[in-house]
């Protein structure tokens, strides 16, 4: 029996179905249901992660290749122009300035991909959410399980990016400080990803909404929210794009972590509160929306 005890954490137990059948000893279904209610989010996260294995290679290649390309092209190549132009940006060379922002932006672009079509697919095309709903799993646990799997992926993806940043000498802070760019990146991803997940779960008929989000929300956020240049390089009447963008709040925090950017403590609290607020709000909305759709 002991080898059937549920694990807590990502390394949920190896489920030995054949052995279980042979033993003839299955825990009573009330016990199984209780376990599911306790840690169902983790179970669903495991399912999602196993599903991702089909795409493991492209995900891994992308996780390594994308930061490398961005660092070489935008940091080194474009940096050469900037260093020859205005010189240091925010007190550091351009590569150091842009690297933490690129980490945040790439993770946010990944979360966009994860929380649009796959959510639609879960409800409609492949109906992956409907099977688990028939078990004691709550819709909220499904939503959070999906999120959890994505978050675990981004911890890895952000970690790879951080290692590459350090290798390029683009994170001058002590390592225990600059490594905070990873949790900051992940938090920014959830701040943008959970409201998006909730919104995606409300869509019955996909009619280009996601293409529009990509073009008119994600893209402008990538371009105008302080990633490539400080907000101050734009006219004042465009600064609001930064203020409402999770990417800007995350980027500012990431810059503090990676090179000790000069951000007042009050603003750091504002950035953190904004990101946490969006994340919590998104999770609550997603839980409601998943429940409404799966229990109707």
């Amino acid at each position, binding site marked *: 029996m002991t080898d059937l005890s549920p694990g807590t954490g990502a390394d949920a137990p190896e489920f030995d179905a054949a052995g279980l059948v042979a033993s003839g000893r299955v825990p009573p279904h009330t016990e199984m249901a209780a376990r599911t209610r306790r840690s169902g989010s983790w179970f669903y996260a495991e399912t999602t992660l196993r599903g991702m294995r089909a795409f493991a290679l492209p995900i891994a290649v992308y996780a390594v290749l994308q930061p490398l390309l961005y660092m070489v092209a935008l940091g080194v190549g474009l940096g050469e122009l900037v260093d020859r*132009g205005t010189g240091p940006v925010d007190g550091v060379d351009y590569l150091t300035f842009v690297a933490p922002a690129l980490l945040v932006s790439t993770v946010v672009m990944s979360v966009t991909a994860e929380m649009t079509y796959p959510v639609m697919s879960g409800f409609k095309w492949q109906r992956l959410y409907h099977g688990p709903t028939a078990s004691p799993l709550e819709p909220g646990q499904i939503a959070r399980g999906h999120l959890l799997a994505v978050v675990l992926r981004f911890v890895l993806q952000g970690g790879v990016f951080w290692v590459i940043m350090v290798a390029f000498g683009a994170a001058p802070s002590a390592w225990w400080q600059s490594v905070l760019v990873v949790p900051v990146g992940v938090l920014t991803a959830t701040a943008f990803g959970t409201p998006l997940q909730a919104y995606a779960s409300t869509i019955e008929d996909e009619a280009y909404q996601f*293409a529009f989000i990509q073009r008119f929300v994600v893209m402008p956020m990538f371009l105008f929210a302080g990633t490539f240049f400080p907000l101050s390089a734009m006219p004042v009447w465009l600064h609001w794009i930064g203020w409402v963008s999770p990417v800007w709040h995350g980027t500012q925090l990431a810059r503090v972590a990676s090179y000790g950017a000069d951000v007042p403590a009050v603003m750091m609290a504002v950035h953190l509160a904004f990101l946490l607020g969006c994340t919590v709000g998104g999770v609550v909305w997603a839980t409601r929306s998943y429940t409404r759709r799966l229990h109707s």
Partner: protein
Amino acid sequence: MGAAGHGIPRPAWLSSLASGNIGAVLERGFAVVRNQNWTVLASGFFEPVFYLLAMGIGMGALVGTVTGPGGQPVEYAAYIAPALLATSAMNGAIYDSTWNVFFKLRFAKLYEAMLQTSLGPLDVALGEILMALFRGFLYALGFLGVIAAMGLVTSWWSLLMVPAAVLIALGFAALGMGVTSYLTSFQQMDLINFALLPMFLFSATLYPIAVYPDWIQWCIMAMPLWHGVELMRQLSVGHLDALTWVHALYFVGMTLIGLVLTTVRLRALFLR
């Protein structure tokens, strides 16, 4: 829609590849455009414009001026605008000729149906490629209007940027469709993105390639996008030289190779 080739005697090898009725393929394409949501088509126009505004104005403040074609200094927005037009021609053509074609080929089985009629593989290939060009033409026209209004072009030669965009799109569409015919899974389709991102980042789009060592520069100059970018940049300021022809001919060659590849592949896939 007329059967353009009828009545003109054609060699036997050609008549097995084409009926000359490309119009039928185009007619279907336009019917789809008419019936889908036009806002999607229109929204594609904004992507290069956003890039231009952000990079041109925001980055421009950090960069100042750069060395343009012929060694004259140009402001940063004027430097990247032609490159963004070349890139958007590439992106549009690649999207149409890869993801769209992949879907029609593997899921909708559209080409299978088309080739059951009197249409030949060359008709289908040309028709699909021409549809991709139509979209590229519209975007190029719109973008040229924007950069002209922003005062980022300084020569009447810049009017040729529209046909140049169509030529670039033609090269990418022809080759893209040929390559797509080899791909069978979504994972393989991701490879296309892996090829496009580095090409966009390195092909002198956002900064001159002189920052790299010689051997990297040679690799970049072998890539199609670099030729497209340079061609556009020369046209935008009216600085034309022998290299202009090299850039243009590169795309003519790419188109021919792509067309042959696509035709051969469609025939191999469906007309056994």
